[in-house]
């Protein structure tokens, strides 16, 4: 009954081959056979979104798929977002806006944000909140994640020159009364050594578009 199969998956541009039973979920194969532990398991019944990855540019719950189903597809996980030490603009925005605390749900939110901003480059706050409703977080209360997604939308739009005059609805952080865009000035930059692209459009590495 328990016959092992050779399974080869392409994750973040690299091919991984492993022996697994057909019942091994895509999430477990990525974590154990590919050694990419950035994708996390929070519920294993498709609600919390911590296991969200990109498959051919689309977000999927990797706990609701079997590894054997993903052969031939191009997967992107959180480990594939940064370019060496240079963070993806979305990762940078999450860092700038304290959009993570324990970090367990963060990979799922990042992959969801990549697809969402691909589909919807100039989102309103309501659109952002609804897009993020498929990922649960218990630490942040979501506010800083919403602010970070809006900021990333700006950075990406500026980078791709797509920022129309109207611009996206800039979510105003009422507490500080300051446009909660990329708040370079607000947060004290205490990181001399952190390589950070400023001004120059960063090479946006995200999953291949559909």
């Amino acid at each position, binding site marked *: 009954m328990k016959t092992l199969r050779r399974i080869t998956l392409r994750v973040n541009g690299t091919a991984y081959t492993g022996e697994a039973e057909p*019942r091994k979920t895509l999430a477990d194969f990525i974590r154990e056979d590919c050694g990419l532990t950035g994708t996390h398991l929070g519920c294993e019944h498709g609600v919390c979104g911590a296991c969200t990855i990109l498959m051919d540019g*689309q977000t*999927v719950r990797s706990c609701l798929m079997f590894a*054997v189903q993903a052969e031939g597809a191009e997967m992107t996980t959180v480990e594939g977002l940064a370019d060496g030490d240079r963070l993806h603009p979305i990762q940078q925005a999450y860092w700038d806006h304290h959009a993570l605390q324990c970090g367990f749900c963060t990979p799922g939110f990042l992959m969801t944000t990549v697809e969402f901003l691909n589909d919807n480059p100039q989102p309103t706050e309501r659109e952002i909140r609804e897009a993020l*409703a*498929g990922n649960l977080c218990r630490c942040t209360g979501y506010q800083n994640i919403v602010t970070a997604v809006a900021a990333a939308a700006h950075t990406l739009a500026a980078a791709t020159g797509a920022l129309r005059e109207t611009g996206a609805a800039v979510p105003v952080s009422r507490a500080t009364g300051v446009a909660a865009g990329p708040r370079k000035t607000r947060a004290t930059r205490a990181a001399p050594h952190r390589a950070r692209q400023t001004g120059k459009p960063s090479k946006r590495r995200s999953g291949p578009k559909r």
Partner: protein
Amino acid sequence: MKPAPFEYHCPRTVDEGTALLARYGDDAKVLAGGQSLVPLMNMRLARPANLIDINRIESLAYIRDDGRALRIGALTRQRAAERAPQVAERCPLLRDALRLVGHAQIRNRGTIGGSIAHADPAAELTAVLVALDGEVTARGPKGTRVIAARDLFVSYLTTSLDPRELLTEVCLPAPPKGAGWSWMEIARRHGDFALAGVGVVLAVRGGKITAARIGLTGVGPTPVRPAEAERLLTGQTPSEDLWNGAAEAVRAAVAPDGDIHASAEYRTHVAGVLTQRALREAWERAREAA
């Protein structure tokens, strides 16, 4: 929460799929999007000995408009249908209902056929199919047959499909041009199962309702088509009293179960409230289209 072992089969054609179903009978389950089945497998509530993964049967993913109805391949992803221009144009009720099915990650994998075959008592698509008098095509050992929506849904998670049959196509008759439509549901959170949901289509001419279609979900073991409420609307001039009358008729037509999230009385009550609000919106849209 790891699934029990199973034999994995991955047919490339419908014939291959039905042959596998014929061979393994009722100890086999079809895996389409998996968004409902795999959670049950991870919890070991469902332990099929054979899993027949139809995701590689490319021929089952399509959306065609045959002039009368939209013919949607069973394997069409919900997200694709949600964004398809033909759906927006010919059957906006389906598009609006799809937007409330779980979340984008779920709809990227969940399929139109899978949701119908799974027949969750609180699913959106089953109520849309019933409201539009849709039908499905199934292929099995005895060949191909077409099942009307009213004969398809039997009980909780149970349809009249034979375990050896593969649902291949969902057919949704397009409402007449300019008809008003509305999908409304109440759920505890964005994307949750509906406590109650209603889809309404109103064909209107000369300020009168020429045809009314209503489909409800979350208010019983299967989707409900309140015939009396539809009859009451047909041929009438829209008014708040008319909407109230239809809401009362809907309340009489449903017999929901209570659970920890909402009592039976609450579901019955909001079924009426939602019908009233959906009729109002559908009528607005019909007037705009006229």
